[in-house]
């Protein structure tokens, strides 16, 4: 019960802070908006060509936007030495980790849900029939990014060049997530049968389980080192 309460309080704290400051989501949103605009003006595509390329463009925007949010996840804890407060707290570090993962997931999904209609408009996509499967792909891939990214955000927060180190350390690890997300999104946008890209969804699910469990156990060590 206490474990779940700590998760809830961590999520609550991050959400309330973000609702009041709007610093993380607004910086993520404007970065992604620029990516969409640059790509949409760079390529003039018909719908078929767009379906081939758009999956990669979507995930470039989502992953780099996510890294901006993940970078802020623990850097905000440096203010007033709040990171120390979390380190000294007797509460479960695993619960703190899961709370942070949830909060980051909510931030990233919020930005993705706002941005995706812009992709649809700028790239003239017809996605009504595939929207439910696309949302599932977004959720699975974003969860994977959040699970690994939260750990690495905590790991790099005390490093002087943390803004540089986070993407350098994180991107190689989330390559499987990016590949699986791009392939599954491409399959969904092309209207392929689910069986044609199901293995990519399985890969995302397995990645999420493995890396959430590993990160959960490693988080205490990261916080104490």
């Amino acid at each position, binding site marked *: 019960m206490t474990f779940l309460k700590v998760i809830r309080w961590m999520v609550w704290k991050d959400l309330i802070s973000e609702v009041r400051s709007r610093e993380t989501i607004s910086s993520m949103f404007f970065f992604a908006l620029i990516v969409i605009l640059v790509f949409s003006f760079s390529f003039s595509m018909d719908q078929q060509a767009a379906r081939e390329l758009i999956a990669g463009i979507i995930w470039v925007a989502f992953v780099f936007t996510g890294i901006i949010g993940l970078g802020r996840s623990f850097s905000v804890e440096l203010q007033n030495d709040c990171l*120390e407060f979390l380190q000294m707290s*007797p509460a479960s570090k695993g619960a703190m980790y899961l709370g942070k993962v949830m909060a980051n997931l909510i931030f990233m999904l919020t930005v993705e849900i706002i941005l995706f209609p812009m992709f649809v408009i700028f790239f003239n996509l017809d996605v009504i029939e595939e929207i439910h499967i696309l949302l599932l792909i977004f959720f699975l891939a974003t969860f994977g990014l959040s699970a690994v990214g939260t750990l690495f955000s905590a790991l790099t927060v005390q490093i002087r060049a943390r803004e540089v180190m986070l993407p350098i350390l994180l991107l190689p690890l989330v390559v499987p997530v990016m590949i699986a997300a791009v392939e599954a999104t491409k399959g969904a946008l092309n209207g392929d049968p689910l069986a044609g890209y199901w293995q990519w969804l399985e890969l995302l699910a397995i990645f999420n389980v493995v890396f959430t469990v590993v990160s959960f156990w490693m988080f205490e060590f990261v916080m104490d080192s």
Partner: protein
Amino acid sequence: MIAISGQEISKTYGYYQVLREVNLEVGCGECYALFGPNGAGKTTLLRILATLQRPTTGRFEILGRDGVKERDTVRATLLLLAHGCHLYEDLNAWENVQFALALRGLSLAQRQVKAVLDRVAIGAFADMKVRFFSAGMKKRLALAKAMLAQPKVLLLDEPFSTLDKAGIEILKQFILETLARGGGVLMATHNQEKAAEVAKRAGVLSHGALKPVPLQDLKTHDFS
């Protein structure tokens, strides 16, 4: 019972040795004042005892529990009141207190929280974001969090700084209440006069070594 017991604690940063085999004992119901010039290692010693850093060599116990091996148990019994105040700028005073208590597994009645916020004269600003607080108000709010948590061992790093006269009186009262409850207090400060009013023993950290200081010297000698 011994609240804080440090045995031959040493801490090295690279080639620089901050603490040299520091031995320290603070009994339950006792306040120990720690002095020393800037960079003497006072904050490092407090951070080690607060389980934020590990000693390079040596060991310490809080209420008989090993500070490294039984870290989680130790953390539930102590509280460090430090420079940073451990406050979230975008939460209001009330929310900061609620969050801090929740992470300690405490859930207190609203009237109890309100009474303590009123006691530190923050009650009227309970709904204000901490971002708009002055340094003194932040310190008072951190003090309120400590009062509500009622730790058995209290570690204070420059507790009197940024507090006004009334704030210092509230802090002194809280220290005396902690001692009356049988708690132990270790306080690093430059304010010898105020420390003399609550401390039972004192020591000065110089070149990483801790030497005892007679209480009567606190008002006459300058340990910085």
